C-alpha cells in the first residue's frame, strides 16, 4: 500500500493482506541499500495467519519518495511516525543489518511501544570499512558489488537460490544500484549509540545471527546479545543476507519467538 508519512509518499508492503490496525502488528525494516523485497519469504506467512505486517521502503528507497534519512536515530523516529500514521500503538520490530540498528534504536526511544525486538545479522554497531565507504561515495556500482560479494555466503556465491531460477545476488545488485547506499552506509558508520540503546530495551528480544557473516561478524552480534537483557540467540549457517539466504530458517526462528509473545 501507499501512504503518506510526514507528507511523503511511502510504500509499505503488507504481505499480501490488507493492513488492519486491530491485529498485532509486525514491522520489518530492511538493510542498507535494500527494500521491502528482502522480506518476501517471511511477511506472507504472518500476514495470512492473524498478524498485520508492514515492510516499508525507507524514504528515498525503491518505491518510497523523499530524501533518504541520514542517521539511524532519524530512521528510528521515522518508524514510529509511520506507525502513528497507521494508528498503531505497539508493534514487534524486526530488522536486518542496518534495519536491526534502526529497530534497536526505535525500541530504546519508545520502549513502551515496542512489543518485541528481532535483530537479524547485526551488532551494536556496524562500522563500515573506510574503503567501502569511499567507494560507495565515488562509484556506487563498485560498492554494490563489494557489498554483495561480502554479503552473501558461500553457497550463494556458487549461484544457489532459494527461489528456483533466480540469481539473488543480481536481484540485490539491481535494487541497491538505484538506492542511496552511500547515505545508508554513512549512517551505519556514524551510529555509536547501540550499546546505550541496548541497555534501554525492555521488551523480549531475539538475535538471529549468521555464522558466515562478513559484514557484521558473529562476534559483534554475540556482544550485542550480552547488552540486551533476556535475549535469545540463534545461529544459522549462512551469510549476512539471512532473510534471503536462509528464508525458511529465518522464518522459523521468527515464528517460534513471535508466537510465544505474551
Amino acid at each position, binding site marked *: 500500500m501507499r501512504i503518506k508519512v510526514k507528507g511523503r509518499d511511502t510504500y509499505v508492503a503488507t504481505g499480501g493482506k490488507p493492513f488492519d490496525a486491530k491485529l498485532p502488528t509486525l514491522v520489518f525494516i530492511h538493510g542498507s541499500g535494500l527494500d521491502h523485497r528482502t522480506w518476501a519469504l517471511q511477511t506472507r506467512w504472518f500476514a495470512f495467519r492473524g498478524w498485520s505486517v508492514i515492510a516499508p521502503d525507507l524514504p528515498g528507497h525503491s518505491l518510497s519518495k523523499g530524501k533518504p534519512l541520514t542517521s539511524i536515530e532519524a530512521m528510528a523516529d521515522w518508524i514510529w511516525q509511520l506507525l502513528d500514521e497507521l494508528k498503531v500503538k505497539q508493534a514487534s520490530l524486526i530488522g536486518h543489518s542496518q534495519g536491526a540498528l534502526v529497530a534497536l534504536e526505535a525500541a530504546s526511544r519508545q520502549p513502551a511501544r515496542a512489543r518485541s525486538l528481532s535483530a537479524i545479522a547485526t551488532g551494536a554497531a556496524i562500522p563500515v570499512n573506510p574503503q567501502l565507504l569511499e567507494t560507495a561515495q565515488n562509484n556506487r556500482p563498485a560498492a554494490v558489488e563489494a557489498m554483495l560479494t561480502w554479503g552473501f555466503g558461500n553457497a550463494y*556465491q556458487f*549461484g544457489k*537460490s532459494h527461489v528456483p531460477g533466480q540469481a539473488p545476488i543480481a*536481484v540485490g545488485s539491481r535494487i541497491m544500484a538505484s538506492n542511496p547506499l552511500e547515505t545508508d552506509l554513512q549512517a551505519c558508520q556514524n551510529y555509536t549509540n547501540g550499546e546505550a540503546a541496548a541497555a534501554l530495551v525492555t521488551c523480549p528480544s531475539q538475535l538471529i545471527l549468521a555464522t558466515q557473516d562478513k559484514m557484521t561478524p558473529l562476534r559483534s552480534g554475540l556482544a550485542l546479545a550480552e547488552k540486551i537483557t533476556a535475549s535469545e540467540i540463534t545461529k544459522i549457517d549462512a551469510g549476512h543476507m539471512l532473510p534471503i539466504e536462509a528464508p525458511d530458517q529465518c522464518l522459523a526462528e521468527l515464528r517460534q519467538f513471535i508466537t510465544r509473545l505474551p
Partner: protein
Amino acid sequence: MSKASFFDPATIALHSGYQPESDHGSRAVPIYQTSSYAFQDVAHGAALFNVERGGHIYSRMTNPTVQVLEQRMAALEGGVGCVCTASGMSSLMTTFATLCSAGDHIVSAAQIYGSTATLLKSTLKRFGIETTFVDINDSAAISRAVKKNTKLVFCESIGNPGLDIADIPSLAAICRKKHVPLVVDATFATPALHNPIAHGAHIVVHSLTKWIGGGGNALGGAIIDGGNFDWGLKPEKFPTLNEPYAPFHGISFFEEFGPAALSMRIRAESMRDFGAALSPQNAFLLLQGLESLALRMPKHVENAGEVAQWLLAHDAVAWVNHPSLPSHANHDLVASLFPKGAGSILSFGVKGGRDAGAAFMDALQLATNLANVGDSRTLVLHPASTTHSRLDAKAMKAGGISEDLIRVSVGIESFRDIKNDLANGLRAAQRTQKNADQKDGRKTQQKTEQTRKQTATAKPVKKKAATKKATARKTAGKTAAGK
C-alpha cells in the same frame, strides 16, 4: 550487467547453481525425474501454494535439474533470473505473451528466424497482437515504428539466416528513450561470445537446442530476465507486471518482486497455463553441453573463419557471407560487439545455381544435410533443393534466398576434414556445371551466370558483400593458399 557470481563464465558454466547435494554427494547434477514433490505436511503444502515459502510443487513450474540450468544461464547472461522452456520457440512465445495482450504492438527486426517471423506475423495476429517489421540496419526506422501501444522491440543479435548483426547499444538507447524493453534472441551468439544485457538489452532469449546443447540431441529454450527495465515507471503501459493479479491474491509482480517481476510473472502464469516445461532429462543433456560451451565456441568460430576464407578463394564459389569477412555489411560492428567472433553460421553461393547446389549436397560425406544449426558436427542446408524446393527462383528471391545459397553451420571437427568434404562437394558442383556447359555451349552459360549474380545480390546486404567481394577475395587468396 550485474555480476551474479564472482566466478568467471567458464567456471559458472560448470559449478553455478549446484554443489554436491547432501544425501549422496552426486558430483554431476542429478536428473530429478519427477513430476511432483511431496509436501512435508499440510501446512507446508499450503505455504508453498501461497508463496509464503520457496520450493518445488510440480515440474510444470519448477524442477531442481531445470533450476540448475536456469541459474547458470541467468549467471552467464548477467540477468536476475531465468525461466527455461521446452524449446526456443516456446521461450519466444512466452516472452511475447507475457508482455503483450490483444491490442498491443511489437516492433521486430525484419531479418529473423522464419518460425519467429511466422509467430509474429500470423499466429500472434490471430490473438490481436500486431507486429511491424523493420530493417535491422535502419535504427531511425525502428525508432519511428515504436507506437504508444508498442510493448517490446525484438531482434536477433546475429540474424538467422542473413547474419545481420544488431547494433544492440543503439537499439537499447532507442528503447530506453521510448521506454520499451529490448528483447534479443541470442541463439547464434551464445553467452560465450556476446552478452546482450551488458550492452543494454533487457531480455535475452535462447534456443538451447543449438550451440548451448551442442550435441543436437535435445530441444530447449531459455528466457533471461535482465532486471534492468523499470516496469514501474509507466505502470499503465505494462499492466501484466503492475496491475493486481487475481489468481495470485491480487499481487502486483513489480511491487512484490521488483527487478525480477518479469521472470516471476512468466513462472506464475505462462509456465502454469501454457505449460511448455523443459523436461529434466533434456535439461541434463543441455547442461552437459553448457559445461563445455566456453571451449567449444572458440573452436566453432575459428573453423567458421577458416572455412569462410577457404570458400572465398575457391573457383566454384560465387560469394561468401560471414560477419568475419570485411565484405560483410555489418563487419565494423563485429570488432566492437563481437570481439570473440560472430558465430559459426555462414552461407555461400555455389556456381551453377540449383542443380550445382543439389550436386554439392549429395556429394558430402561428413557434413550432414539437415534443417538445424549449432550442432558440434558440421551441418549444411541447400534451401533450393529441400526446404524451398517447391518455389521457383523468383519466389525464392522474394524471400531473400537465392537458388545457389548453401548454409553451413560449421562444426568443431578438424578444419582439414571439413575442408576436404566441402571440396568434394564443390568438385561435384563443378562437374554439373561442366556438363551444362557442354550441353548448352559457352554463351548460354555466361547468361545464366549473370542471372545468378543478380539473384545473389538481391538482398541489400548481399549487394554490398558482392561489390566488396573482389578485394576480399584477393586478400583471402593469400591466406587460403596451400590449405
